[in-house]
């Protein structure tokens, strides 16, 4: 399970069908969300951004846990493959968080009139973005890359414990300070004609996450083991 050549073969087969599946799900989901689903009663057509914003946000948050879990496995059982997984997941999560932030801001303009609103969700996303950047920056800052992986594992574990606390406290913060003049409606009951494409897009983004992590891992492993017999044979035979 933890052996690089086995993983290489397995991930190669996996990617071969995961890539077209992901693209298909994304295209179908986007088409459905953009063209087929009806416009929102209050927000009109700008709500269609939800089909990117929410999936990106959901997978970005889940991705942090994947990264931290991989870090924990690498720290506790010293499995090298796990720290490759952790390193592969970090930039993906960061990009998805950035997409959630940008789409959130763009969505905010037609909805509430400003490009940036400090509501609970966006503020939590921003802090998640900083958490991701921290992991990436910490890895780059260390000279010894084995120590770097362990440091990132420790950091992401601390982040994991803190994320629920951060999200909850930001929620409370927002409700304490909520300006009376503007009412930000929460996730009210969503119609099924809008829910299904959203679920599809969330699934698509999960596939995208898995795909990108696998691709990152394959590139990393190929380089790391470039001098090993199995790589030499793999490429020599190709």
């Amino acid at each position, binding site marked *: 399970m933890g052996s690089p050549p086995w993983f290489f073969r397995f991930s190669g087969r996996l990617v071969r069908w995961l890539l077209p599946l992901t693209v298909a799900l994304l295209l179908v989901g986007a088409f459905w969300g953009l063209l087929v689903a009806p416009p929102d009663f209050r927000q009109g057509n700008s709500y269609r951004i939800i089909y990117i914003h929410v999936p990106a946000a959901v997978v970005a948050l889940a991705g942090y846990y994947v990264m931290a879990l991989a870090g924990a496995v690498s720290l506790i059982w010293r499995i090298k493959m796990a720290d490759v997984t952790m390193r592969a997941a970090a930039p993906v999560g960061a990009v998805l968080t950035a997409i959630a932030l940008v789409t959130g801001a763009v969505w905010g303009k037609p909805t509430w009139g400003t490009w940036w609103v400090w509501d609970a969700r966006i503020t939590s996303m921003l802090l998640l973005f900083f958490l991701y950047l921290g992991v990436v920056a910490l890895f780059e800052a*260390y000279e010894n890359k084995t120590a770097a992986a362990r440091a990132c594992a420790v950091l992401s574990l601390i982040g994991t414990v803190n994320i629920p606390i951060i999200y909850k406290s930001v929620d409370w913060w927002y409700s304490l300070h909520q300006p009376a003049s503007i009412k930000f409606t929460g996730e009210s009951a969503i119609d099924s004609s809008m829910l299904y494409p959203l679920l599809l897009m969330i699934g698509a983004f999960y596939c995208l996450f898995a795909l990108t992590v696998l691709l990152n891992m394959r590139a990393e492993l190929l380089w790391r083991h470039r001098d090993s017999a199995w790589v030499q044979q793999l490429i020599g035979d190709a």
Partner: protein
Amino acid sequence: MSSEGPSVSMFAAFSWQFVRHAKTLINSPADVANPLLFFFMVITLFPLGLGPDPERLAAMAPGILWVVALLASLMVSSKLFASDFEDGSLEQLALAPYPLPILALGEIAAHWLATGGLLSLVSPIFGIMLGLPTQGLATLMFSLLLGSICLTLIGAVGSALTVSIRRGGLLLSLLIIPLNVPVLIFGTAAVNEAVIGGNAVSWLALLGGLALGALALMPIAIGAALRVSLDN
């Protein structure tokens, strides 16, 4: 290092570290005064930047005081394990037959007393300077006392992770700021609640809970982080 055998209790190991670092701090009063001075000067910037209107300053005072306390904590955190790392005593401590988390806690405790603890005790003075109503002053002090325990512990993890990196101070801030946010939110909520005449006890209890949680969990992470830094 220590001539005592492993039969010495953990508390003795903790105290040894505590006393050692407390002595260092007492012998360099600049290290103790600097954060206070920083706090003082930055607090002064706010009326200059926002205008001297007492009502506006008073309304913003809880937030301002807490944010500046957070910044001061960031500033001192980078010094936390630096001297021990540089002169090699951290390596010795890691090899000692005592749990590194306990040894680190000794240093952290001394550090906290001189920085966060001290700052909390004098904070009402700065509260008055910003026009914080009297009913908020005690809560300000208690919220900072409890909160600074959290901030110091979180800062310690950040410092432990970055002590081997050159110019790690900026990275330290990036790592720590998201983790400090809940403490900031609860702290300001407590003071705001007290100012309007409400009961801040529930917010202080939350802060206390965070402090206890941090005391229980952070030292393990700090120990692990210190070992990682030694390997860099």
